[in-house]
Each structure stands twice: as structure tokens, then as C-alpha cells.
């Protein structure tokens, strides 16, 4: 098995849906991220062996968005590209897919990315209408076509992409609220955590820590886009005024302590260690190990990190004390706190994780110190690469050695990844 390194990672600014990216489609955003990566790393396109992109809301015209975005970004047309999907951990899957290809010797250089936009979503006609339109298409005469369409009009209706879990019909916010209640996470705790996320993100942005953010020149706009626009530092007191969003009236998740609908894209450059050195790069970190977990989508939808973290650490004989940087995806403040509680509970460890004892409390001072998905935003497919890049950048900035990235995802799945800072 060859060593896999992260050379660098970039991302477009993450914007709230319906703002400055509203005229762009997901392949546009991914193109910007890929172009940005090429420019940032000055990588000749002929060196890229493979491109893999993760995304959730698919545009049918660009179902292999990796290919379409890479082609239009100027990558070589002789570079194979494919697209993966795993809900919120789609680009994590892109990263690990690339890493596996490199480790197994199939590729030396892989570009892994991710993108999602909620400013434009596929809205379909109802099934009945689609059927009648397709039937009309097959009719030879105009009158035949017309009569088929007219008879199909009674099925008129629109289908929007579902926001609820396919197997349980429950929205993620609703599940998250139940999770918070299950672990006794109060509204106050959640608002405080959310406030922390926004404040830290704001500070990190001000201090210029968020090095991965690109400048995007979008056509027809008067200014380039340079900053994430969802970061809003507020106090828990201000947040306490909001009403619960998913479980009314006694719920705890509100718009303030939940991640928001975001548009954005990210891309990372992975190589085998030898290739990186031979091309003259100094890698940022090794991608050492990773795990995926899969849980009950009804009652454990968002507990992925709680299961994945101990599994990952066990594989390398590590404990939380050995880890310097934690970068976890923040779907909801309540979800983060519930996962932390679950990892700190002997009862949960023994009953559900089949472990002899709990992992312990992850140290908050090492946790998401540059903000997280709650404040920076969560374009579903793009977050994974952002977490990996941020973890590597934090290792360099904070002079750490080991980092753990983890995330939960719709479908009840989860992921954790171990990074090791590349020696100086």
C-alpha cells in the first residue's frame, strides 16, 4: 500500500442559497473550484490521472458532474472522471475513493471534489404527467399527441426533491430534534454551541486563517465573491428568541442552531507521496486511514461520528488524547452535542457500540476551532473536502500531528478519517 498525501485543497466561498450564486448551476461552481485548484497548485492538467466529485442534488443534464465540470475547467479530455454520492459525506467518499486508487497503484494523481447548490433544484412534473408526455411523444400525429397530453393534464402536479429520509419519511431536522431530546441536550446548550461556531468562524475569517477560500468571478456580477456570507456572530440570548423549526412547540432545533441551505464547491489534490515529491510539491498531510459506518436511519440517523470515531482510533491504537485537531461536520448543534455525549457514555458504548467502555469526552478546545458547517455553511457535497482541507491547514497552523475528520450523513451513515501532518 502506497502512502497517500493531500497536497492542497480549495473551495469557493460558501454562500446562502439564493444569494450571489443564484444564477449558477452546480457544474459552474464545481468548475470554479477545479480551476481554482489548478491555479493554486500550478498543476499541469496532463498529470491528473483521475477526477472524482461528490454531489447530492443531481442535475440530470450533468449527472456525471465530475466529467462535465472537469472538461469545462480545462482538464484533459483524456482524464477519466466519475461522480459519487453518499449524502453529506459525498466528497469524503470522493477523497477516500481517490486515496484508494492511489494506494492500490491505479493512479498517482487524483483530484477529489464536491459541490451542491440549493439555488436551483430539479423540479419534476408528477409521475402521471411524465407518463402521458412520454406516451404522447410516441404518437405519430399531432392530434394523437395533443389528446394524450390533454388526458394527462389531470395528473398535473409537481415533484420537488424530497427533504425527508426515503426509508422513514422523516425530515432530518425532525430526526435531529429527537436526537437532541434523547441525549438531553437543552436549547440553551445548542444555542451556545451555535454561537461558538459563528464566533470562531468570524474570527478565523478575520485573521485570514481560511486559506482555502478562492475568489470567484461570476459572470454578470458587479463584484467578485470572496467571502462566506453565512457567518453571523450572535449571542445565545439573541438566538433564544427564535421558535423551534421542526418540532413544534416543544422542539429545540431552530434556524440559528442548524446548518443552513448553502451553495458552494470544493476540490482537493491527492497524490502518492513519491509523485508529489517528484513534482516538487510539499504535501500538507498524509491520509492515513478512514472508516465508514452505517446505522439505523430511524433512530440513529445522525450518530455516525459517535460510532466512526472510536472505530477509526482503535484501528491505529490511538486515543482522543493523541489527536490534536478535530474537524467534525456540524449538521445541527444538537447533533454535535449528542454525538459528544454518546461518545462519553459508558451505557451507550456498552449497549449500542458493543464496546467495553466509553471513548471519552472529545476536548472542545481542539474541536472545530475555525468554525464549522453551522456558520460557514453546508453545501452537501462540498463539505467533506472542506473538512479535510481545514484539518490539514489547522495541523500546520497549530503545529499539530494528528487530525480526525468525521461527519454524519442522511441515510444514517457516517465517516471518519485520520490525517497526519507531513513532516517538515
Amino acid at each position, binding site marked *: 500500500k502506497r502512502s497517500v498525501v493531500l497536497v492542497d485543497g480549495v473551495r469557493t466561498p460558501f454562500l446562502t442559497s439564493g444569494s450571489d450564486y443564484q444564477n449558477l448551476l452546480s457544474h459552474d461552481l464545481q468548475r470554479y473550484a477545479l480551476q481554482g485548484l489548478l491555479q493554486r497548485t500550478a498543476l499541469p492538467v496532463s498529470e491528473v490521472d483521475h477526477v472524482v466529485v461528490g454531489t447530492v442534488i443531481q442535475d440530470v443534464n450533468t449527472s456525471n458532474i465530475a466529467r462535465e465540470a472537469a472538461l469545462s475547467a480545462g482538464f484533459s479530455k483524456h482524464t477519466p472522471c466519475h461522480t459519487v454520492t453518499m449524502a453529506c459525506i459525498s466528497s469524503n467518499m470522493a477523497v477516500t475513493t481517490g486515496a484508494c486508487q492511489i494506494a492500490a497503484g491505479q493512479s498517482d494523481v487524483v483530484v477529489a471534489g464536491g459541490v451542491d447548490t440549493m439555488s436551483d433544484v430539479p423540479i419534476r412534473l408528477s409521475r402521471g404527467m411524465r407518463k402521458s408526455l412520454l406516451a404522447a411523444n410516441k404518437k405519430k400525429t399531432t392530434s394523437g399527441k395533443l389528446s394524450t397530453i390533454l388526458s394527462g393534464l389531470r395528473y398535473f402536479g409537481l415533484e420537488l426533491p424530497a427533504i425527508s429520509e426515503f426509508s422513514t*419519511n422523516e425530515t432530518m431536522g*425532525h430526526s435531529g430534534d*429527537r*436526537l437532541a431530546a*434523547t441525549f438531553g441536550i437543552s436549547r440553551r446548550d445548542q444555542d451556545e454551541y451555535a454561537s461558538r461556531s459563528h464566533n470562531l468562524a468570524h474570527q478565523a475569517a478575520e485573521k485570514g486563517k481560511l486559506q482555502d477560500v478562492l475568489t470567484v468571478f461570476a459572470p454578470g456580477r458587479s463584484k467578485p465573491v470572496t467571502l462566506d456570507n453565512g457567518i453571523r456572530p450572535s449571542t445565545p440570548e439573541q438566538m433564544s428568541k427564535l421558535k423551534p423549526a421542526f418540532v413544534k412547540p*416543544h422542539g429545540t432545533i431552530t434556524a440559528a442552531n442548524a446548518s443552513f441551505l448553502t451553495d458552494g464547491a470544493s476540490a482537493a489534490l491527492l497524490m502518492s507521496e513519491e509523485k508529489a515529491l517528484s513534482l516538487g510539491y510539499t504535501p500538507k498531510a498524509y491520509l492515513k486511514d478512514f472508516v465508514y459506518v452505517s446505522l439505523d436511519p*430511524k*433512530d440513529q440517523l445522525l450518530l455516525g461520528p459517535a460510532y466512526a470515531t472510536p472505530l477509526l482510533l482503535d484501528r491505529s491504537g490511538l486515543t482522543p488524547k493523541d489527536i490534536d485537531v478535530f474537524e467534525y461536520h456540524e449538521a445541527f448543534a444538537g447533533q454535535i452535542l449528542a454525538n459528544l455525549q454518546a461518545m462519553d457514555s459508558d451505557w451507550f458504548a456498552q449497549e449500542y457500540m458493543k464496546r467495553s467502555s466509553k471513548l471519552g469526552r472529545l476536548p472542545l478546545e481542539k474541536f472545530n476551532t475555525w468554525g464549522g458547517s453551522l456558520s460557514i455553511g453546508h453545501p452537501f457535497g462540498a463539505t467533506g473536502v472542506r473538512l479535510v482541507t481545514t484539518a490539514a491547514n489547522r495541523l500546520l497552523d497549530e503545529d499539530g500531528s494528528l487530525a480526525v475528520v468525521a461527519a454524519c450523513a442522511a441515510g444514517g451513515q457516517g465517516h471518519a478519517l485520520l490525517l497526519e501532518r507531513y513532516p517538515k
Partner: protein
Amino acid sequence: MIQRLEDSGKPVVAAIHGSCLGGGMEVALGCHYRIATRHPKTVLGVPEVMLGLLPGAGGTQRLPKLIGLPDALDLCLTGKNVRADKAKKLGLVDMLVDPLGPGLKSPEEGNIEYLEDVAVGVARNLASGALSLPTRERKWTNMKGLQFNLTTHQRHVRNYVFGQARKKVMKMTNGLYPSPLKIMEVIRAGLEKGPVEGYEAESQGFAELGMSSESKALRSIFFGQNECKKNRFGKPAKPAETLAVLGGGLMGAGIVQVSLQKGYRVVLKDMDEIALNRGYQRVYEGLNGRVKKRAMTNFERDHTLSLLSPQLDHKGFEKADMVIEAVFEDIDLKHKVLRATEAATADHCVFASNTSALPIAKIAAVSKRPEKVVGMHYFSPVDKMPLLEIITTDKTSKETAALAVDVGLKQGKTVIVVKDSPGFYTTRILAPMLAECVRLLQEGLSPQNLDKFSKAFGFPVGMATLADEVGIDVAYHVAQFLLNEFGVRLVNVYMYIHSWEGAYQFMHLMYCTFGVSECLTW
């Protein structure tokens, strides 16, 4: 006492999880606010009518005022179970609380604690004024309020509602069950004459019904059914996980469907692709019907179907714990099937026959493992008819019987276990009745009158219709067979071949026959 709750100056909140039926429901009705968990176990209702009684702790007075007369009549007269979501829609509960998953304690404990927390919070808010009690008065200005007030409080519309309800009750019961009629009387008294008269009528009515022979009979059926939920052979050493059903006809498909719904892996085998496909489609339609009624989601239907393996061969039969044959009532075919099955299954596999009249011992005659052969007589439609008649021979082992009863109970059936005598139990008691029915027809009674009189006596389905439903030819064969077995004990039979128009429902026959409940021995 419930009145004291209602009158209390302090807000009283009912926190409901699990069963809230009958008296429990009536206590909850006396509270000012009701919260229920959206849990599959949570069920509300007033089933007293099923025991020939009425909701005697204020239910008949409080329920119409809360949810309106039409819905109150629906609940009281049918005794139906109401799930949490429906209860919220009806206005029976005011707020729903979601069940929680596993956390720092088991989900069961967590649910109760969460419910309590929310309920206490609500009670506090009610006391402080932060939350105001939903007005139980409805306005006349919106559609729902208008409907409520007209049907419950406006005399003429109310009378119409009672009239319609009465019509339905008479159609279903022929006036033979006093309880639904008394319930309507008592509700009416309360709405027309006020609470004092209403409560008085309710307690009088309860006392009267309690003494009635109908109530005694219904109560005994209830206890009998509960008794039948026990497996008197004990738990099987190795409960079944995989079943195979032979024959995808109406019975076979029904057996497959109820087994899948309860989580069994099922192999459905039939003779050729067309028959197999028909069987599969029947199972699909059965499950899809539940989806349409919203008893199941699309996903659950597909997930349930993934437990089904339709096939033409015996692949995987070595893993089967029980094979239920539902093929044609032909002894040679059954022998052929039994031999083929035994060759393909493991030694522990039980062979159950869904025959309605062929003696199990005769079927088992060609078996290498007669101790594993048992009869499992289902009734059509399998997904709706609760009775399952299990027939054991003197060779059937206790373990086999235990397994068969266990499967039947898991399928949600009311199980009776009987000896392998001719006609077993159900056919044996039906045959003389049908024979007498034919005799009456011979003596000149018209089928329509026969139906009329037998329904007036109390049978939910007229005897002539029943004979038609069973099938005159089938009945003839069975009668012949029983005649041979029992000889002179059975009345000599001539059969008219009549054909009657119309399709009738084959309902409640088993309830009727089962009312003669004490002969359930083996």
C-alpha cells in the same frame, strides 16, 4: 372522580403512551389537555361496545362534546382503535410527542421521561397562562366549527346524524345487539337534556347492559380469545424463521402475506410461471392495499416484499422450518407434494396442510416423518379472518404442535387446536347446520326467507348465502364424506343445486361458531 378532575381549578394534563382504552380513555377525557406519543403502541379508543357494554365513566357524555357527534358515534359504536396521528386530527388529543431513539438510557425509559418533561412543561404553561387551553367551543364562522355545531348541537341535524347511525347499526346488527342502540340513546339523552340527565342515563344504561345475556356472551368470547393467545404446548425449542408456502392461490397468497407482514422469510412455490406470478400479484395487491389505506408506507411494502422469494423449484427448502401447503383439495396431489417436500427439506421441518376436510392422518400416510405433519386450516380472506384451526394427529409431536401454534400466534391469529376427526371442528359443526338448511329448502322454504329468518335469529350471514359462499358442490362433497365417516349420526342429505346471484361477505361466521367456545380441546 373524573368529574373532580374536570372541575379542578388546576390544569390537569393527560400524558398518554401505549394503550389508552375504555376507562383509561375516559380518565383522559376528564383532563383539560391531552398529550400522546406518536408511538406504534399508542392507541386510544372506547371499545366497551365490543363487550356489549357502553363507556360508563363519562365517555358517552364527554366524547361528543370534545370531538363532535359523528366522530363520537363512530368511536363508541365500532369500538375502533385510534392511533396517535388520527387522534390529533379528531381533536381527541391536543399535542403529539415523538418517540426517541436509544440515547443515555433505553428508548422505552427515554420516551416516558421525554413525555413527562413535555407534559409538565405544558401544565406549567397552562397554569401560567403562557399556553391557553384550546377552546372546546367551536365557532359558527368557520367550516369545521359550523360542521361541529350543526351535527352536535343543532337539533335537526343532530337527529339526522342519529338517524343515519341507527340505520347503519340496524343494517349490521339487525337490532340483535342492544349495546350500540343503548349507546346512542344515552348520548342523545346527554345532548338533548343536559349533563345531569345524560350521566344518569349513562349509568343506568351501563347497569342494564352489564346484566344482558348479549354482554355476557361477548365477554366470554373476549376471554376465550385471550385464552387462545396462549400456546399451551409451550414455546417451541427452535421457533420458525423461514416458511415455505406451496400454492399461490387465494389461501396461499393470504398466508404468504400475513407471514411476510410479521417478519417471516417466505418462499412461495407454485407449479408454473403464470400461477406463480398470479400468487405474487395477489401478495403485492394485498400489501399495496394497506399502503393505500396508509397502514403501511411504500418503503415498508417494498421492504416486506423483499422477504419473499417466489420460485418454481425447491431451492432453499433445506432452510425452511415449516412448509404450508395450500394446493388443491386432492389427496393424490397432496401426497405428491408431501413426498417432494420431504425430499427437499431438513428433518426438523414441519409440514402443515391447509386442508379444510381431508384427514391429516390420511395425508400423513405417505410421510417419512409423520410426527412433523400437522394441519393448519386458515380461513379466507386470510389477512382479515382471525381464526386458525390447527389439527394434530395422534402421531404429531408436541414440538410440532408448539411450533405450529407459535407460527399461528405470530401471524396474529386466534388459534384453536383440535383432533384429527372428520371435519375437524369448524367443518364438523358447520355441516349439520348446512344440512338442516337444505332440509328446510326441501320442505319448501325459499332461500330468501331462509336468509331472512337465520339473520333475524342472529347469524350475520344468512344460511342460504353461506351455503352459496362455501359452494354447494364443496358442501356436497364434504357432506358425503362426513356421512361416510359418521354414518347415521348425520342427517341424510339431498342437495338442491341452486345458484344465487350476488356476492356476499363471508363474515363473522367464525365468531358465531366460536361462541360455542368450550370444545377447544385436543
